[in-house]
């Protein structure tokens, strides 16, 4: 009983410390709980924590798990190793990430934000639910190479985790389901919706765009928006964008659906936070946005499943290209990558 009281008080202090001076829509200290709010003008999310009631304790537990290397076989790699906050939770400057024993992955580590709007996870959409997403990297031999069962055993042996599970779920039973739900609380609250573009759209202070950026917005809307749809800047479909398959010959979505029409298709990534998430594409082969635009202008690899919209590439004048790059720069959410709530140190 004494134990519970102590941790409750600590949690209370945490709310004050974390809320700071700025108000944040997804974190309401008055209610004493974490809140998930749909940003103005955004569609209904796929996941809204059904059966996984949000709480400060759950969020903190999920965050601790996210940054805990004990999720890997040799206790060396955490989720945060390849999903760094300053990189919008992608892996900065890595085409592929290295797992335990420096084993190399085969696809670029995607950023983590606005996951509650995703219907499928990973580049191929193989996982159908945010709560089940972590099982894949935990058990993938080239990532964490651990069994969920072993992770659960490690957590059960740890007093601090038992306390945190009790604070979250009411008793200290530790199961894979509870662990996964807690991680989903942390990941689901990683909402990036405060870029300059967002403030512009909402008519908020700090939301000014200059003429070049506004011209870039028009270029984006006429040349990019059919796949990178506002406001998430992805339609979350699977498309072949003309990357020439490497020696890995990654079949993409077809690996999941086993149908030929899905060969070399990958989930359309968001255009948000590109400043922080280089390199680009599922193959991580393009180091700069200039290189990305070069790819769309003249690098399209023709193949039977190439997206019809890309058969002639995307041709931009020098002016359009410059404007577009300036517009894309307004999609970077500095508030998100500096948000103290998501920072590794507690």
């Amino acid at each position, binding site marked *: 009983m004494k134990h519970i009281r102590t941790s409750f008080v600590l949690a209370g202090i945490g709310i004050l410390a974390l809320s700071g001076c700025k108000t944040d829509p997804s974190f309401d200290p008055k209610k004493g709980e974490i809140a998930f709010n749909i940003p103005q003008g955004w569609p209904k999310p796929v996941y809204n924590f059904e*059966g*996984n009631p949000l709480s400060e304790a759950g969020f903190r537990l999920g965050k601790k798990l996210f940054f805990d290397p004990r999720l890997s076989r040799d206790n060396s790699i955490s989720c945060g190793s390849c999903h760094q906050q300053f990189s919008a939770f992608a892996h900065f400057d890595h085409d592929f990430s290295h797992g335990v024993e420096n084993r190399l992955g085969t696809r670029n580590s995607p950023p983590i934000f606005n996951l509650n709007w995703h219907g499928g996870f*990973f580049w191929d959409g*193989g*996982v*159908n*639910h*945010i*709560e*089940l997403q972590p*099982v*894949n990297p*935990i*058990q*993938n031999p080239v990532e964490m190479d651990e*069994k*969920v*069962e072993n992770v*659960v055993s490690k957590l059960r042996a740890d007093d601090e985790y038992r306390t945190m599970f009790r604070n979250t779920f009411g008793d200290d039973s530790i*199961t*894979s*389901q*509870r662990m*996964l*739900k807690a991680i*989903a609380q942390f990941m689901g609250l990683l909402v990036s919706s405060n870029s300059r573009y967002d403030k512009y759209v909402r008519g908020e202070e700090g939301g000014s765009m200059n003429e070049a950026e506004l011209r870039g917005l028009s270029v984006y809307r006429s040349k990019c928006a059919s796949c990178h749809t506002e406001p998430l800047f992805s339609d979350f479909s699977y498309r072949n964008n003309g990357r020439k398959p490497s020696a890995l010959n990654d079949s993409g979505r077809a*690996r*999941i659906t*086993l149908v030929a029409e899905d060969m070399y298709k990958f989930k359309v990534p968001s255009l948000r936070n590109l400043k922080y998430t280089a390199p680009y594409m599922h193959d991580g082969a393009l180091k700069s946005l200039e290189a990305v635009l070069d790819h769309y202008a003249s690098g399209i690899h023709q193949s039977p499943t190439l997206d019809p919209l890309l058969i002639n590439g995307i041709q931009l004048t020098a002016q359009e290209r410059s404007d577009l790059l300036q517009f894309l720069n307004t999609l970077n959410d500095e508030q998100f990558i500096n948000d103290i709530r998501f920072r590794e140190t507690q």
Partner: protein
Amino acid sequence: MTNETGKVSFTFENMAGSAPLVLSGPSDASKDKWYIIESGDSLKITQYKYYATNFVLHSDSGNYKQPESYYLIDESIPQSKQFTIDEVPKRKYTKISFLIGVDEERNTSGAQTGALDVNHGMFWDWNTGYIMARLEGVSPQSPVPSQTVSLHIAGFQGENSVLRLVTLDLPQPLDLTDGGLKNIHIKADVLEWFKTPNEIKISEIFVVASVGQDAVKIANNYSDMFKIDHID
């Protein structure tokens, strides 16, 4: 429990033909039990488990569907093969039904627990879905050097669905109105996996690790492997 309800327990016995299935161990070859399947191929079985879910008891005066009805029958775990359904309304039941596999809803609604925990070696982490039935073994007819046979039967959607509804008539009505625990004994013949309507040659199907035709063929085979042996 009130006086209005009774209990029904189920006992699953895995068979190979007319004899109880014997699993072969990974090490002691002298204890291996070899089976001849329909095609004439030899097979020893080292691991065997499947989901039986969504149990329904049928009567003329109404059906009883067990809520949260998920069981993983694992041949290596005796306790997994016997379970009791409580709070069954006292009626005269004439049929039972259950699903082989985990329904679509639980394949698409996030992290589960109990029999559906991802820890049972019955869950695909890279392509979400439960393995509905799993058989591991060894056969000299397997074309790989390890002679592996590894059949992971999965798929919950569309033409790839391996979900199969089993409906079994009870040999005599199960009358809960007279009180007392009733026990339904079910026998399941593993050799049916390889028999009808699709005779399986191990040289052709020795590994199933994705959804698709091979999984569906085997599911169609094992969908009729269950028989009610007796009720006591």
